[in-house]
């Protein structure tokens, strides 16, 4: 079935990132329409669209906006462009190829929420994106789409660009706020620090993902109902998925949300084009490295939030990583755990110490120093980070980074324990490294 491209429509337009290209392709129409409406009407359209947040948690944006306490000023909009989840690279492309769409989304959101200050936090490594969004913002200021008296109206919005310094954890909204305030990027505990009530500089703050806001112009231009008609009942509109790993044609694809299945996306000719070299699929990560893994039998599940949640994983940031039959599961597991271990901010004891311990145990197993009891040890350490090792995870930590390192181990052991056993073999030597450790 044919659906309109909502967020990626300008990706193939060579000058889509410039104001000229953007205007030629219908840009800033959503803003023009928005300022003819009342802020509440704009908010209502977004609610009608039931646009789910595209950052990872998938919380409806319209409802999130409604959490702002009335009459507390100032309040801020913060755009989370610190996309760092392994396998996720949709926001980067949105920033590089259609920065004006994002800026338009920001301005409309500020209008709807009565805000005048927006902070656009872009990941430090996205050098190209930074250039593009900075150039676009300058153009937008010059032509009155941002700044004082936007399009000659009373609406005034300032957008401040801020480059991150390269920490994964700053993608977590409260850590992002800390970082924006100039502090070390460490998550705050919710409660009490729900950004909508105590956010940036202690003021009510809405934190939205780049892709979420990139949907706003289309929603306002075409109406929330039109958006809600696309996709499944609860997962509306389209969504961008990044497929990587052992597929023929890795890339980013905008598909109808909630109706497309994993099989469509991974195997479909117009999308990832199937597993490389005609191999069979061994496992895939459905929603970024934090998500529990799926296997072949999950391929026909639709890309729909509630269904995936009920199956024990999540769509998360829309990153699908495919592993074919040649994959060494223990190495894959080690790879993901090492990522989380290194990206732990160091605040909570279980995450700081636990993820590193998990990495060290896996490292040992890979190097032939595994012991039979290490499997139980792995699971018990996981249990101490995320009691019960269930989904959604319980956690002894402030943010979900710690439990994220538990997901791959739990998934891999559930399905491919034999591969761990094979590494361990009959080894009974207690391995004490004396050369300064393994990492």
């Amino acid at each position: 079935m044919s659906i309109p491209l909502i967020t990626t429509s300008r990706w193939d337009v060579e000058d889509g990132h410039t104001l000229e290209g953007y205007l030629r392709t219908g840009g800033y129409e959503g803003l023009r329409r928005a300022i003819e409406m009342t802020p509440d009407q704009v908010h209502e359209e977004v609610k009608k669209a039931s646009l789910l947040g595209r950052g990872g948690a998938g919380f409806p944006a319209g409802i999130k906006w409604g959490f702002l306490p009335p009459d507390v000023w100032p309040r801020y909009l913060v755009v989370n462009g610190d996309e760092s989840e392994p396998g996720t690279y949709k926001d980067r492309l949105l920033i590089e190829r259609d920065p004006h769409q994002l800026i338009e989304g920001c301005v409309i959101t500020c209008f709807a929420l009565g805000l005048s200050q927006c902070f656009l936090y872009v990941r430090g490594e996205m050098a190209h994106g930074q250039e593009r969004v900075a150039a676009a913002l300058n153009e937008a200021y010059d032509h009155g789409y941002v700044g004082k008296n936007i399009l000659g109206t009373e609406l005034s919005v300032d957008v401040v660009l801020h480059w991150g310094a390269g920490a994964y954890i700053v993608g977590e909204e409260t850590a992002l706020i800390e970082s924006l305030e100039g502090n070390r990027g460490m998550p705050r505990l919710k409660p009490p620090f729900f950004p909508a009530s105590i956010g940036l500089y202690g003021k009510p703050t809405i934190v939205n993902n780049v892709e979420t806001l990139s949907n706003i112009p289309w929603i306002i231009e075409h109406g929330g109902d039109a958006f809600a008609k696309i996709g499944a009942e609860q997962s509306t509109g389209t969504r961008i998925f990044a497929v990587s790993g052992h597929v023929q044609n890795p890339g980013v694809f905008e598909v109808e949300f909630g109706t497309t299945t994993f099989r469509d996306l991974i195997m479909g000719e117009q999308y990832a084009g199937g597993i490389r070299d005609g191999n069979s699929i061994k496992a895939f990560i459905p929603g970024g490295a934090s998500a529990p893994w799926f296997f072949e039998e999950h391929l026909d599940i639709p890309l729909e939030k509630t269904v995936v949640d009920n199956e024990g994983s999540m769509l998360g940031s829309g990153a699908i990583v495919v592993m074919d039959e040649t994959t060494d599961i223990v190495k894959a597991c080690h790879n993901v755990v090492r990522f989380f271990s290194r990206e732990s901010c160091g605040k909570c004891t279980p995450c700081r110490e636990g993820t590193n311990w998990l990495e060290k145990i896996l490292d040992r197993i890979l190097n032939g120093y595994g012991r039979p009891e290490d499997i139980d040890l792995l699971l018990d350490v996981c249990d101490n980070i995320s009691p019960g090792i269930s989904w959604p995870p319980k956690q002894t930590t402030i943010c979900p980074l710690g439990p994220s390192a538990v997901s791959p181990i739990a998934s891999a052991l559930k399905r491919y324990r034999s591969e761990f056993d094979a590494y361990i073999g009959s080894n009974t030597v207690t391995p004490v490294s004396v050369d300064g450790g393994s990492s």
Partner: protein
Amino acid sequence: MTEIQQDSGLITVTIDGQEVKVKSGEVLIDACEEVGVDIPRFCYHKRMSQVGMCRMCIVEVDTGRGPSLQPSCMMDVSEGMIIDTQSEEIKKVQDGVLEFLLLNHPLDCPVCDKGGECPLQDQTMAYGPGETRFVEEKRHFEKPIPISDNVYLDRERCILCDRCTRFADEVVGDPLIQFIDRGNSTQVNTFPEDPFASYFSGNIVQLCPVGALTAKPYRFKARPWDLEEIESTYPNPLGDRIVVQSSRDQVLRLQGLDSEEVNWGWLCDKDRFSFEAFQSEYRLDNPLVRGGGLNKADKSGSGLVAASWAGAMSIITESLNGTDPDRVGVIGGSRLTNESQYAWAKLAKGVIGTDHVSADLGDELPPHVLLGLPRATISEICSPGNTVVLLTPDLKEEYGTLFIRLRDAAKNLGVNIIELSPVKTALSSDAVASLHPLPGEIGNVVEALVTGNIPREVGGISGEEISQAHTYLKDTNVFVVVSRSSMGQSEVPIIEALTSFQELENCRFLPLVRRANTMGALDMGMAPGLLPGRNTLSSGSSAFSDIWTNLPAETGANTKQILQKASDGEIDVLFLLGADPLTDFPNKALAEAALQKVETLVAVDLFVTPSVYESDVVLPATSFLEADGSHTNVEGRITPIRQKITPPGTARPDWMIAAEIAYRLGHDLEITAPEDVWEEISSRSSVHGDLNYGRLDDEPGGYLITATGRIPFVPVEERIETRPVDSYAMRLILGRRMFDKGTITQMSSSLSHLAEQSQLRINQYDFERLGIKEGAQVEVTSEGRNISISVKVDNRVPRSSALIYRNLDGADPRELLIEGTHSIDIRIDPTSKARS
């Protein structure tokens, strides 16, 4: 029912199956502790913000939305909350967190200073696993690295609880230690080339829940189980509560005692590490007399020689016998305990019969200001919604724990601070108004501020700034903290300012003093015209005449007058009680002349100070570590000072020395122990009414003097004229540093090197105007007298003013002081230019 609950502020929660009443809004971990449920913790500290990062205090909390794991330090209790601290799941979580903390902890407890008093060790015993399951190599860092002059950091032991870093940033505003790196490599460290040079560095050692932070003066000196301790009071103006810890009759450590009313457990380094001084080899431990050989007194002798107590005493009694009481003077005594002060006042006024007794050294506010203003306590001042006006120098330099309390009040309690200091201070950024009146002009500035009758400009401050500050004085309680901010300004402008403040309704004051127990000295009668308990010679002598038999009739001389008399040859015997006029008295020349001229100069002291060196008889006294007594702080709070170790050599408590002299003069002071003083005083003092010396240790806040009046504040009637600075001159400010050439600091080996060189500090603007190089030597002149001093740019100093810190190595700015003026203008002559 609900009304009653609201009234009492109590709510009902269920803790481990028991319904209990707890205070509404309390932090869960504290609420549990109050009902006897102990929850393990590392990062939580009730005097700092909550971060919830050690995860040790996780409990199961159900607020109606189903049970969830929550750190109990980050949650306030709410009605109907169900808390489980004991479930199997919680036990496993706590075991797990401890195991995680121990993974990389070196377990070098046998050689760790903290071993034996270590929360990690204790909680591992109580909750932790018996054996480790971690077979890998532990994390390694370079073993202890110095992060400041007195603090070492062992990052291997650190459990990253954020206590030290929070303290540095939140409590004292010295964010010089931070987390660096991330994940498993996270570590606390300083910035390169930028040590943790905080005046409060010792507190982080006390805060550390493991042995990661150790203090140089204590490292490897003792094991906690060998320490004996006693709660006492540090003799500083604030009376910070302390715990004195000793082993084998050596004090090894002072710790802050968490006193709700005063210091909240904090101490500044100057006090914390000063115990070294009292045990240094330079302590006086034997009487000395001027003479020509051992025990051979000879007034013409060039040196001080050891003597027996009897020998030294006989010189004193001989010199007093037959001497006109009017020719005897006593200077000092503010270092003494209340009891010793009483004994010396009784000796001087009741036995010898002189009223030339003065505890101050010419650099305090006069007694009528210190005693006559309605006082406020620190906690009353630091209450939400108040406005506090500071007529003080930088509190961080001189009154460390008061600085901490006020900073907290401004940051967390919504207290509005209006600062009227000579230069920018550590509280400036937290103040709603930070104004820096030209020295001498503060009276005029305050008049405008209080009355709202604001000229376009006054004392170097624009009317706009004053009217903005003026708005904070309306509809609120106003408190004034006041001290002699700069010796370059006479006390008259300050009294002018206080006179204006008295026009405000309900305005109350916290007058600060320079020396530890000046307040006690005044309440014990160690000032001319005063008798103990704020009685005066004129009105209260009847209460004392039965036991103070030789009371003088006339009000005597103050310190300046005593020194003047002495230099005129009118004083034969002068006692210096822990006083060093040569170093401290503003007019050094007068002090020198006076000490030269006095026939018999008797010093009672701990060390050989410059003035002690000039004395004829030197008697060694005990320090606060070696004798019992009590101390009165600036609030009027009396707290106990307790003996922990024996005095060095034959040193004696000051009250005992007074009693001995009286005895040899044929009088019995009837003081054989500190408590005897209170038996005598309680019926005669109007302010110490129900003080029970025996119960002083049991009262957490000590005994607070609440009575007021009797010694009335004397307002200034005539305003002094505004005196602008001409464009060739600069107005002089004399300040003080925490670390200077003060005796105690210099005798503490860990602190002595922290004092800097004397420098002239001026604003960048003036610096460029003068066209000199940083560090250049300049001639500074005032009325013909001059000093040579190097120049430093310091933008905390306002334009047209110049700041010199007192009592440092190098030039002595007392040379520039001019008697009888309210402010001093100096001229700066760049030497090199003058030569060319």
